[in-house]
């Protein structure tokens, strides 16, 4: 039994079948992006063990095809099993050994990237300073005690947890929180329109607004703006109902002599240092609108290390700092409000592809040269 299992995992047939399935999966997963958008297609086809098919849009699905994790996992097992079985260190298979070692490293590195890396963005107006970046997808509901003008005490609740969060515990004052309604993506309107509902807010700017629920977007250049109506109460006594949304500024209220703020905003990732946008440039080629370069000059200010310096971030030239990498992402250089957005990536395994590439490249070249020399020798013989 064990030996036949081992046989299965070392077989070249498994390799070929997996490679064939992978080819098909990547093809179908690419085409699916047209309809489903990059992120959804990626989750469905590549970051999954099975691709499910839901007949007629049902909320359950039948696994119809192996997903990226399954195929990748099988290939990795296949590779490792073959290593165990065939590992013989000699000149003839040195190349292949190196190639496959590189491949294992590459696959593992990508798995770790998948699991560990985070992406966010920092949007800076000219002259603005921030010590946090904002998540692309996740949002948070925050209630802050802002009585002390220097330090705010903040409670943040990921929106995914909202329906199950009964209490917001601030140091001075615990509030009970009740979510009346939640929209994953919503537009706010000043007048009633098609498909709008009254916000039902009793406090804040939301009182006069209408909420228009939207289907979550899958487009890469749009993001979902969630909204919710929440009621806060103190010991069973309601304080009021607020409409919160990524489109609204923080709304403040006072209670028992202290001032508070409530807001729904993209999830923040704080850093122990701050960035200030000093200058931005959007260069075009003469007489055209073709962009030649986007660049942002920023100042890093890190009180903990006393570091304070200027950096120029431009296309193909990111800033790597304290495990984070800042890339020039978007830019509004022409409007009245000039701003630049940097993409912020934390990817602890970013070096693995470089190493893997070296290994596989060297191995393939070795193998290929060996073949070529053999071929030429045979020919001249």
């Amino acid at each position, binding site marked *: 039994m064990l030996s036949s299992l081992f046989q299965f995992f070392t077989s070249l047939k498994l*390799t070929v079948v997996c490679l064939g399935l992978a080819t098909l999966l*990547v093809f179908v997963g*690419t085409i699916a992006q047209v309809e489903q958008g990059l992120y959804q297609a990626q989750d469905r086809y590549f970051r999954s063990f099975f691709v499910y098919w839901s007949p007629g849009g049902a909320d359950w699905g039948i696994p119809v095809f192996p997903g990226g994790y399954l195929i990748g996992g099988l290939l990795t097992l296949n590779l490792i099993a073959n290593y165990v079985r065939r590992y013989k260190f000699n000149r003839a298979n040195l190349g292949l050994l190196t190639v496959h070692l590189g491949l294992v490293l590459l696959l593992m590195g990508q798995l770790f990237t998948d699991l560990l890396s985070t992406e966010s963005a920092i949007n800076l107006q000219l002259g603005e300073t921030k010590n946090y970046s904002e998540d692309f997808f996740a949002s948070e509901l925050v209630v802050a005690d802002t009585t002390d003008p220097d330090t705010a005490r903040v409670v943040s609740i990921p929106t995914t947890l909202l329906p199950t969060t009964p209490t917001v515990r601030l140091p001075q004052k615990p509030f009970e929180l009740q979510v009346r309604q939640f929209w994953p993506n919503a537009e706010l309107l000043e007048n009633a329109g098609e498909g709008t509902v009254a916000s039902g807010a009793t406090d804040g700017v939301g009182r006069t607004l209408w909420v228009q629920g939207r289907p979550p977007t899958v487009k890469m250049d749009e993001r979902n703006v969630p909204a919710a109506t929440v009621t806060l109460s103190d010991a069973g006594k309601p304080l009021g109902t607020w409409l919160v949304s990524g489109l609204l500024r923080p709304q403040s209220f006072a209670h028992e002599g202290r001032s508070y703020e409530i807001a729904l905003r993209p999830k923040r990732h704080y850093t122990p240092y701050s960035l200030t946008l000093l200058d931005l440039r959007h260069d075009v080629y003469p007489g055209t609108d073709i962009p030649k370069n986007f660049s942002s000059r920023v100042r890093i200010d890190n009180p903990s290390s006393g570091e304070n310096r200027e950096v120029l971030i431009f296309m193909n030239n990111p800033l790597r700092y304290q495990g984070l990498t800042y890339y020039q992402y978007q830019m509004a250089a022409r409007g009245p409000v000039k701003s630049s957005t940097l993409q912020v990536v934390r*990817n602890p395994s970013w070096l693995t592809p470089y190493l893997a590439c070296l290994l596989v490249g060297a191995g393939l070249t070795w193998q290929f040269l060996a073949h070529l020399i053999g071929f030429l020798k045979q*020919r001249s013989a």
Partner: protein
Amino acid sequence: MKNYVRWLPWLVAGLATLWVVSGILPRSSSGFELGEFGRLPVVLNGRVQPLDSVARNSLRQLRNKQTALRDSRTRVSAIEWLLEAFNRPARADELKSFRIDNPELLGLLKLPENEKHFSFSEVRPSLTELERQARRVDEVPAQNRTAFEKQTMKLYSSLVLYQRLKNSLSPEFSTNFLAELTDYEQLLPAASAAAQAHQDGGQFDSAALNRIMVFVRRYSQMAELSHPLMVPPADPRAPDTDWQSMGASLVAAVEKGSLHPAVKWYAQMGRAYNQGDVNGFNQALGEYRGWLAAHFPQAYSKGQWESLFNRKEPFYKATALYTIAFLLVCFSWIRESAALRRSAYALVVVSLSIHTLGLIYRMALEGRPPVTNLYSSAIFIGWGAAVFGLVLERFSKSNLGGLGLATAAFIGLVTGIIAHNLALGGDTMEMMRAVLDTNFWLATHVVTITIGYVATFVAGFLGIVFIVFGVLNRAFDRATAVGMERLMYGAICFATLFSFIGTVLGGIWADQSWGRFWGWDPKENGALIIVLWNAMILHARWGNMIQERGMAVMSVFGNVVTSYSWFGVNMLGVGLHSYGFMDSGFKWLLLFVVSQAIIMGLAFLPAAYCRSQLFRSANSGPQGKAAKDAAAQRA
């Protein structure tokens, strides 16, 4: 008589070289130095280029050719057409400059359906209607447009381009631009002083300002319409950004108080051309050229070199020679003629030589590595395949004679045709968008990936020949099959190496510029599919799961995979690589895929329908005993 085996190839090579070298510019019989006019540098699409390029690229967009038609017979060279449009718009309107194929569009414009080439005058009566349609179509997202709507938009933008060209040198309806300029120049000093005084808040001569306003309004309109930036900066050290359109330069003259000398020379050339004054034209042209050479030597020589490149058309000639070479190889197989095969060899060598020269010349002109866009990738794939094919021919056994030549010639000619069609989009030396503006990654990632394409196509072509021979060629035997299989295997190894390295380099580039090594972007996935497919072929061979015929079939499918990665993903219109978007090619891609499917199907034709011993002997099929024996031997 046997001797012709020796001299025929030399004769063929000599004739081909003669044809290539003889491509001297068509001298205008009128005496106007049109060639020299075509070399004048201007700035367009963000780069310095000669007027000749402006003319050719415009006509490519307007009527898919580098010439216009006077009537159904007489061709007008691009530069002459441009001169007419610049200086005699009314006459240019009579030249057939537009190509319209779509029957619905022809119906809309009330044009005869049995013709394709039309002049502006013929289209003019329906302009309002066309504009109305275009405004509607403009609202429709590009990927949802019907063929009629796409063609409507294309014609509309062609007309806009034409309109802009007509206003680039002088206002379209001016009767005597030179005289007009003389009047304008006389008003300038007073107007300039008045404008300055007005700005300083002092007393100013409002009459002088009013007099000149008529002109300024006219020239501002012209500046809005004009296409290339014709006038160099006042300061030779200024960047290319400071070139100005004729109109803008005329408006700017008010502030400066004088006209830019280039403006006057262009006006003199225009006037002389209108009057048929050959000497006047050539003299003004000569003076301007002398001035350019002294003040803008770089732009001047760029104009010279690029227009020479345009006239020599190295890639077009290479394509033609590859076509002849391919035919010669085919005949050499049918007639078993060594003379024909050697002649084909000679032709491929000549063709590859001009192809190489063209490639290097283009790189020097652009200051870029060989592959910068889809057009240049096609040129490069053809070149790579020709090199690959010649190497195969040189090193493969004699029973495979001609195979490498056929590979070189066929892929060379097909990619040549593809490149020709891609060039119809306009300027093929366009500037690189921000993230692409890096010679390092263009030289490493893009070139390696493209070499991977080359090798996959070479293997695929060998696969096609294998299958066609198997079905049609009586003499196709096991020895040949085994030899061909080895060649395919070698090409696939090569393809795997380069595709993999190229893909990973692309990942590293993405990591450098977007923050992630891999993002499942369509173009990345396309490259990955090539790697996966080639790896699959290699493992299937190592596991003895396929024999010669299986190798051929899988290699042919490699063509499909590669063409998808090369073009298909750009047609999806999603992702970060969609800069190469093109929709007209979709039909052709589909046709190509179908053709490859048919060829793969042929490999499974029942033995009775095949003519070669190999495909007829029952035990030589993909699972046959003889095949297994051969495999054992090979292992």
